[in-house]
């Protein structure tokens, strides 16, 4: 493989929360050291519970947030620290689709103006050419061409999301970051939108960073899946491998919470205890240890790193190797220790 399209290295995004005057401001570590490579043309699914930092990661990658530290390399260029004025090319080649199709479309702009806005900002074409391009885009996402004069509030949720998608692909970007693009939609519309995204990917050679908390859907669309917990990626594998061989206790807990279509897949009941800890106060050692059924003393002291457990399957658990074998049907001594 060649150079990845997007490369994140030890990316951090911390928020300083407001506090009483003179009191130290608590620091919320929403993204806390993410390493990720995105290959051209692939879809990387990112899953995790609410509040684990998925949106913050997406918004940091697209530079809506200033990264606290770490690097973002897009197509060989460091963009994490570049000032806004030098991001021109990056701004054209990376686009985002938002979760809320109501909030992400300006209610005072016509659909035509909404879709033409990225073209206008990038200075592409004359107004007439842009109108033509907008008509083509509307057709591409399955909306009637007279939609251009209408306003977003005249459309249903699914249609609005199509408007958002048309806007995101207007500049024919390389990378599209989808932050839960379908979770606000009706179940019946979700499939249509996902299929459209897949078609667009095939036609335009898009790369997707696809964020969701819907595990059954992410498997359908993703080539690889990353599982995020408290600001960090704890497991990363091809989607088949992840479902077949979940090797982090958190992934297993997530999977056991959904009906797994594959009856052979391991279904060891590993219930998660308690609530997700606050990102202001992340546990020492392994960040999952407060809820992990397998936690040992080692877990409190040493933070497990993402390591390859074979075949490009990465997991951040001291016992990932054993869990992987167990998932393969090999009874590991671990099983007894758990009981």
């Amino acid at each position, binding site marked *: 493989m060649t150079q990845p399209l997007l490369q994140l290295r030890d990316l951090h995004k911390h928020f300083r929360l407001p506090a009483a005057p003179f009191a130290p401001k608590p620091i919320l570590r929403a993204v806390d050291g993410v390493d990720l490579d995105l290959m051209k043309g692939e879809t990387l699914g990112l899953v995790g519970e609410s509040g684990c930092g998925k949106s913050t990661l997406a*918004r940091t990658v*697209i*530079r*809506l947030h200033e990264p606290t530290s770490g690097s973002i390399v897009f197509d060989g260029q460091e963009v994490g620290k570049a000032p*806004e004025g030098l*991001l*021109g090319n990056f*701004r*054209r080649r*990376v*686009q*985002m689709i*938002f*979760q*809320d199709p109501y*909030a*992400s*479309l*300006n*209610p*005072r*702009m016509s659909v035509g103006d909404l879709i033409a*806005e*990225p073209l206008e*900002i*990038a200075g592409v074409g004359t107004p007439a050419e842009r109108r033509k391009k907008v008509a083509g885009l509307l057709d591409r996402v*399955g*909306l*009637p061409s007279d*939609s251009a004069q*209408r*306003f977003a*509030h*005249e*459309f*249903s949720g*699914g*249609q609005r999301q*199509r408007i*958002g998608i048309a*806007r995101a692909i207007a500049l024919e970007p390389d990378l599209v970051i989808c932050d839960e693009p379908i*979770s606000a939609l009706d*179940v019946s*519309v*979700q*499939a*249509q939108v*996902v*299929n459209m995204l897949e078609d667009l990917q095939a036609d335009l050679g898009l790369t997707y960073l696809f964020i969701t908390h*819907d*595990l*059954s*859907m992410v*498997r*359908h*669309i993703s080539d690889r899946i990353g599982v995020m917990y408290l600001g960090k990626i704890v497991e990363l594998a091809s989607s088949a491998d992840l479902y077949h061989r979940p090797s982090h206790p958190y992934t297993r807990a997530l999977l056991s*919470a*959904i*009906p797994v*279509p594959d009856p052979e897949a391991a279904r060891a009941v590993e219930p998660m205890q308690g609530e997700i800890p606050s990102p202001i106060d992340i546990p020492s050692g392994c960040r999952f240890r407060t809820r992990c059924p397998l936690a040992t003393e080692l877990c409190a002291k040493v933070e497990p790193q993402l390591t390859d457990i074979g075949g490009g399957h990465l997991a951040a658990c001291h016992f990932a190797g054993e869990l992987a074998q167990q998932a393969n049907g090999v009874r590991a001594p671990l099983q007894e220790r758990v009981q």
Partner: protein
Amino acid sequence: MTDISPEMWAKVPAGEKAAPIPPPAPTYGQEVRRRLWANKPAVVSIVFIVLLVIAAFFGPYLSPHTYFKQDLKLANIPPFFETYAVTDGAGETTRFFLNASNFNLYEVDAEGNMLGLLRGGRKDMIKKSQPYEFGDQTLTLDYSKLPVRLLLEDGSEVRPSGWSWNRTYLFGTDQLGRDILVRQLYGAQISLTVAFVATLVNFFIGVFYGGIAGYMGGKVDAVMMRFVEIISTIPLTLYVVLLMVVFDSGLLSIIVAIGSVFWVDMARIVRGQILSLKSQDYVAAARTMGASPARILTRHLLPNSIGPIIVTLTMLIPSAIFIESFMSFIGLGVTPPLASWGSLTSEAVETLRAYPHQLFFPAAAISLTMFAFNFLGDGLRDALDPRVGR
């Protein structure tokens, strides 16, 4: 959402169409207009304001009077009066009315047009009476006791024969004999001009300042808002007095004063709006496209704050009118013979005991106009609020 089976993600067959688009819903503008028209006080206010503006700027051309021409012989004429009719031996009838406050008789015709001041005979200073001769008839005006009486030669009192509107001076005249209606219309011109100019200045400064403070946020915002607080603590009167040293005209200093002080309200409103809107996803979307702050402000944030901005503007107009009137009232406003509602009010107050009707017109003009703009502002706020009736 977690229990969707994977089959759900299968492709929809090619022939299948997306859900049909619903019929066009009324646009926001149409919706606002509908709700505004349904609001009766607001509609009445709009009509009143439009009529007032037309009257103020075109009315004076239709009048034979000017705002500055004095006629001391016809001072303090009321807008309506009780007429007396006296017929002399030759059968000539003279109609006149009695101004009970300055003891003058004014001749009028049958329709109520002013013909002029009647000349009486020598005043008897001791008996406090004055004879008036009409051919062979003589009436005596007796002002030794109030109310004044008109007596015939045989000592019986003359009764008024009816009452009439003043056709020459519809609103009467002031203490210098100037037509009150025309002065009233000129006053409206000045008051409305001051209000609109000041409001326009407020609009531009306030929206610009508040927009920048809200969009930048953080320290810039804190500093800019402290400055706003300092400005809003300066008493306006002091400010106008100081400005009058710089600008000779009281009018200009009032406009500058209102324009340079009142924008703080607008700035606060706009800043609050921008602060709450800038975390919206559509602003984030614009930022990911590389939109400049100026573009985000003008294309996204301000158009979405237009409702509160318009409401604040309509609410600013009555306060500007009131401030101008107040300043003119206490003598810091327009210079005579120019009139504004405030200076008309203060002139009328001088003669309040004798001619209370003179206060009625400017006071009514000020209050009705303020009412109208307040009702309109309320109506606009309700109409523009998307939470109402949606």
